[in-house]
């Protein structure tokens, strides 16, 4: 999934690495107070851009934990790597919501104690115990960063301004719609249907039984003739909006900000039905060889400064509410752009990605799993 965002971070690297490096050094003493001495080493699997020297180097200096990074290209690869050789080859993984439950139920990751992480109390409440990394009150990792899937539209071409996802299914915009080329997009349609057709009884857009799933897939098949292109890279969507091939679509804040910077008349919003979003979590292997260093890292990346650096670098939103001011220091106005200071209700309106599994959570095992989602997505695109 997340490989789609690589293009985004590459572009940002160029634009922002320099000012970010110039930000003032904040004192981080006390971050590691609750830990003993580290094991001197730390191995991790990360998304590219998640372990930059900017914040890795100071970590190594302060803890003596030498960091060995491995970048993964997809959630599936992360799951495979964490299980390689019986597990334990890597201490940490920056799992996205579509991988985290697989790791938890596969006993691949260990529980962590959030009270050891000083900044945990500064997290927005939504991200302290989200269902994609917290099961039965046990924390299998510490939330890192997130981003919403927003409704993006051209303000000159789309009038009146939309306030519902219904706009993406409106034949008025035939051939001018673009949505992500990603099976998890089915959840967006499920979210819309959960409000539009309450009789279907959709409670969670990631837990769909056969009947609900069929209704969602039928809606997406009806949407297909309206779609100009299913975008795979953030850059694809940007060029679609720039060249007038699309006037409305599902998007991320990164595209909105890039397009607005290029003077394209666009705006994004979270429609009244709410939205889906991704949330990444640092998780520790259940067989980690360097657990102290691993938890020190979790504490380190939760600090406001690292949160701000990573948010700006990658184009996503921090979970620590104290990161906002520091983001503005690095790039003026970035905190508001990425909704890092929004009220708690905003975060609650986001349904975060989680792996669709057969177990619906109600004792029944009749939900559609991820393989079904992927096959249905191929069918929808035809």
């Amino acid at each position, binding site marked *: *999934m997340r490989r789609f965002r690589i293009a985004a971070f590459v572009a940002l690297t160029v634009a922002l690495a320099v000012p970010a490096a110039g930000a003032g050094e904040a004192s981080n003493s006390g971050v590691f107070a609750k830990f003993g001495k580290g094991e001197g080493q730390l191995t991790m699997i990360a998304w590219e851009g998640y372990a930059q020297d900017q914040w890795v180097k100071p970590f190594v200096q302060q803890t003596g934990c030498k960091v060995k990074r491995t970048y993964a290209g*997809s959630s*599936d690869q992360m*799951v*495979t790597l964490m299980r390689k050789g019986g597990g334990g080859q890597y201490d940490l993984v920056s799992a996205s919501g579509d991988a985290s439950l*697989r790791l938890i*139920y*596969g006993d691949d990751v260990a529980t962590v104690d959030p009270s050891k992480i000083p900044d945990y109390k500064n997290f927005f409440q939504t991200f302290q115990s989200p269902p994609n990394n917290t099961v039965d009150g046990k924390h299998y990792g510490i939330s890192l960063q997130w981003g919403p899937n927003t409704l993006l539209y051209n303000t000159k071409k789309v009038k009146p301004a939309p306030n519902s996802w219904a706009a993406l299914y409106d034949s008025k915009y035939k*051939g001018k719609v673009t949505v992500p080329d*990603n*099976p998890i997009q089915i959840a967006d349609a499920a979210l819309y249907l959960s409000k539009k057709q309450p009789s279907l009884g959709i409670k969670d857009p990631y837990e769909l039984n056969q009947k609900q799933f069929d209704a969602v897939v039928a809606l997406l098949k009806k949407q*297909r*003739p309206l*779609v*100009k*292109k*299913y975008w*795979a890279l953030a850059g694809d969507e940007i*060029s*679609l909006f720039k*060249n*007038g*091939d699309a006037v409305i679509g599902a998007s991320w804040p990164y595209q909105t900000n890039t397009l607005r910077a290029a003077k394209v008349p666009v705006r994004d919003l979270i429609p009244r039905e709410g939205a889906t979003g991704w949330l990444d979590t640092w998780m520790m292997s259940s067989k980690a060889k360097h657990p102290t260093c691993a938890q020190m890292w979790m504490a380190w990346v939760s600090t406001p400064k690292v949160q701000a650096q990573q948010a700006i670098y990658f184009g996503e939103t921090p979970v620590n509410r104290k990161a906002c001011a520091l983001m503005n220091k690095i790039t003026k106005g970035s905190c508001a752009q990425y909704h890092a200071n929004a009220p708690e209700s905003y975060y609650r309106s986001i349904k975060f990605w989680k792996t669709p*599994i*057969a177990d619906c959570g109600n004792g029944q095992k009749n939900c559609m*799993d*991820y*393989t*079904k989602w*992927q*096959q249905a997505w*191929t*069918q929808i*695109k*035809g």
Partner: protein
Amino acid sequence: MAAGLDADQGLAAPSEAAPRARRRLGSFLWRHRWLRALALLALPVGAFLFVYLAALGALFVSAFWSVDPFTSEVVRTWGLDNFRQVWESEVYRRIAFRTVGIAAAVTVTDALIAFPFAYFMARIASPRTRALLFVLVMLPLWSSYLVRVYAWRLILAHDGALNWSLAKLQLPTVGVGYSNTAMWIVFSYIWLPFMILPVYAALERIPHSYLEASRDLGARGWTTLRRVVLPLALPGVVAGSIFTFSLTLGDYVTPALVGGAGSQFIGNVVFESVGIANNVPFAAAYATVPLLIMGVYLVVARRLGAFEAL
């Protein structure tokens, strides 16, 4: 045999041992031709057997396996489910037909464009012009495939170069960006050199005396073209079509970049089955479809004499 022995004895001048041993090895190999052939072919044949065929075999075997939906690990139990899914699902059939249809359209388009071009190059152009045309044909191949596809994306976009030009000429604009039409145009452009070169080679090989004989026998230009040139050039066209057809059939980058909402190729489904769903067995099962199509195509092409024109 006799000649070999003669040479061995006759040339065996008293000298150091090394050249003599080498000569003896040489004559030994000369006498056992199969050994020589084996030594020559061991490396390529080995590579072919162990790298190419073994990989294909592994792919084919894995097509019978399945994937555990939760752990996403391959389960090595035998079954025909993947093939049944490919066969029964209307979508996978439609995608296969789309792939073959566009590959065929691209092949016909390229043949129609390449033939007059190659004819001019082979039989009309002066050597200087011919050299220049060769460079022009090959020139696009020097740049990256991706760059050329992206360039077409800009040309065909809604506010792209094509519509801009049409608007300047007071003509109605077209909406071909991100569609099957766009794929057809881009594929035809990208694979054109692979059609021109074999057709050129076939046309150049036609002896001039044939054309003179045809004229002497009273055939006009059109009849000569139809009854002499075309049949002799056909193997070249078929050889070129193997390239254009198979290259289009196996591509997934152009559909992903310039294709629209309903433009998936077999390659895209395979790519997504492996890359997103981690479902290698299904990808393997679907990948046997183009393999079969190409097998049939090559048999027909051989019948038409394409392999002599390669």
